[in-house]
């Protein structure tokens, strides 16, 4: 079942076109990566879906046309977004950040909050240990975990994650991506992951789209894209994919 469908989506910032007709689809429960270099339109695509940039074209989520909806209304339908820069509430405690996550689910699955919180704490024990600490005092990796945990506690049906590896040590990134995969399987959640590091992303996702200049230039299963040296050389950069240049 198609959960998300983008058709001919265009978006611009201050008159500069960032998306030139994006077409993509995500099915319920699958994990999909958006790959591409800086400026290819990965972040804007996620923002077009969550309603934080104004778009033309059609964004359909769960058979509802949400094009032009305010961001908080899209979020209420079950779209979680871990934004670029993580969007931590730095002056609130870790616990308060997570509570905001659970509040985002509205009336859906309200009885489930305690168990979900326990599951998240098990996955990221550091968030339990530091629960009374100010979120701004966490390290970058910890803040990334917090951002993902918070978004996921809203029990979204689609989770958008923007560059979780940015500024983090490779070990930490791997750990975070692996946790994401665990949650995705357990909570039957679809994930759309924007990631510059193609090799790392292709190791965890089911499928991927390759973007360049605001459109999709290639797509396929993770296995196919891992094998496709032509696509890798053209759009993903050899050192990014781990092959010798």
């Amino acid at each position: 079942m198609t959960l998300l469908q983008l058709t001919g989506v265009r978006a611009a910032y201050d008159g500069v076109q960032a998306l030139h007709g994006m077409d993509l689809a995500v099915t319920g429960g699958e994990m999909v990566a958006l790959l591409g270099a800086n400026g290819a339109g990965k972040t804007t695509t996620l923002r077009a879906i969550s309603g934080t940039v104004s778009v033309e074209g059609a964004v359909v989520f769960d058979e509802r046309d949400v094009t032009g909806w305010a961001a908080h209304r899209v979020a209420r339908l079950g779209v979680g977004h871990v934004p670029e820069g993580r969007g931590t509430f730095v002056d609130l405690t870790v616990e308060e950040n997570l509570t905001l996550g659970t509040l985002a689910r509205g009336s859906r699955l309200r009885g489930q909050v305690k168990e979900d919180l326990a599951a998240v704490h098990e996955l990221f024990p550091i968030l339990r240990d530091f629960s009374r600490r100010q979120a701004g005092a966490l390290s970058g990796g910890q803040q990334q975990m917090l951002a993902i945990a918070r978004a996921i506690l809203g029990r979204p049906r689609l989770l958008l994650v923007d560059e979780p590896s940015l500024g983090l040590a490779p070990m930490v990134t791997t750990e975070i991506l692996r946790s994401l995969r665990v949650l995705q399987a357990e909570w039957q959640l679809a994930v759309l992951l924007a990631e510059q590091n193609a090799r790392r992303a292709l190791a965890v996702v089911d499928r991927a789209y390759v973007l360049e200049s605001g459109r999709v230039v290639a797509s396929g299963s993770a296995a196919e894209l891992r094998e496709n040296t032509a696509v890798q050389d053209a759009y993903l950069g050899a050192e990014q994919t781990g092959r010798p240049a």
Partner: protein
Amino acid sequence: MTELWQQVLSGLGSGFIYASLALAICLVFQGTGAVNFAQGVMATASAYLAWSLVSNGMNFWLALVLVLAASFVLGALIERVFIRPVEGSSPLVMLTVTVALLIGLQAVVALIWGDDPQQLQSPFGGGSVEVFGARLTAQQLGAAAVVLVTLLLAGAFFRFTTLGLRMRAAAQNPASARLLSIDVGRMLALGWGLAATVGAVAGVIFAPTLGVSPAMMDSSLLLALAAATLGGFESRGGAVVGGLVLGVAANLASRYIPGIGSDLQLVVPFAVIFLVLLLRPQGLFGRVSSVRA
């Protein structure tokens, strides 16, 4: 000694006016980034409304409750109508809008109720109480108690309720708040409504002392701005403490510093604003945001 104690206590009494106005100013500032110069005149309008109701025979406390509700609605409405269109604009635009609000509302108040000062009867009667040797009127004590309860309730609201948490989130990081399905616009309107309510408590409960007139809150507004500067515009608790400190300081200065007297009392807030901006611009309790990359 008793004299000093007496001055401290009565300074604390007026400090509660500044504290509540300062808290209101902080609430608005944290949410919309605007220093609301109209906060004082909004409280004046509330006081006039209470005076109208009471002089038409309504019980003071019932009038207070109705006025608080009306002030809440009015505050939220002002946000929707006047602030929403310029949301996210530069501080200069915000300043212009709130100063325009100040002038406009003052005119509206004078238009409806006239310029003549009016007297609102104290709901606490004319008695007085002795507190460790100092004499306080029932009005002073009662008004301070009502404001104190209001401030504590406001604090508890932000600390312990989920709505308060969502309002803090919306104020601190609106973009992230939206992604967590928080209707930021609604939170800002709520913040303005709440600020108007807190200001209205001070305006109405202190009206018997201040007298009801279009300019009744003018000097309190200045002291409240100094209080918010002292405590830090980012800190609700700091603004309240700042208000109390300034109340005492202004009172002591007018009593003990030769040449200041009650006419020059307003020198104190200006001196405080000046010194704080010079020495510690974020205020005593303001934080330089603790962010790590």
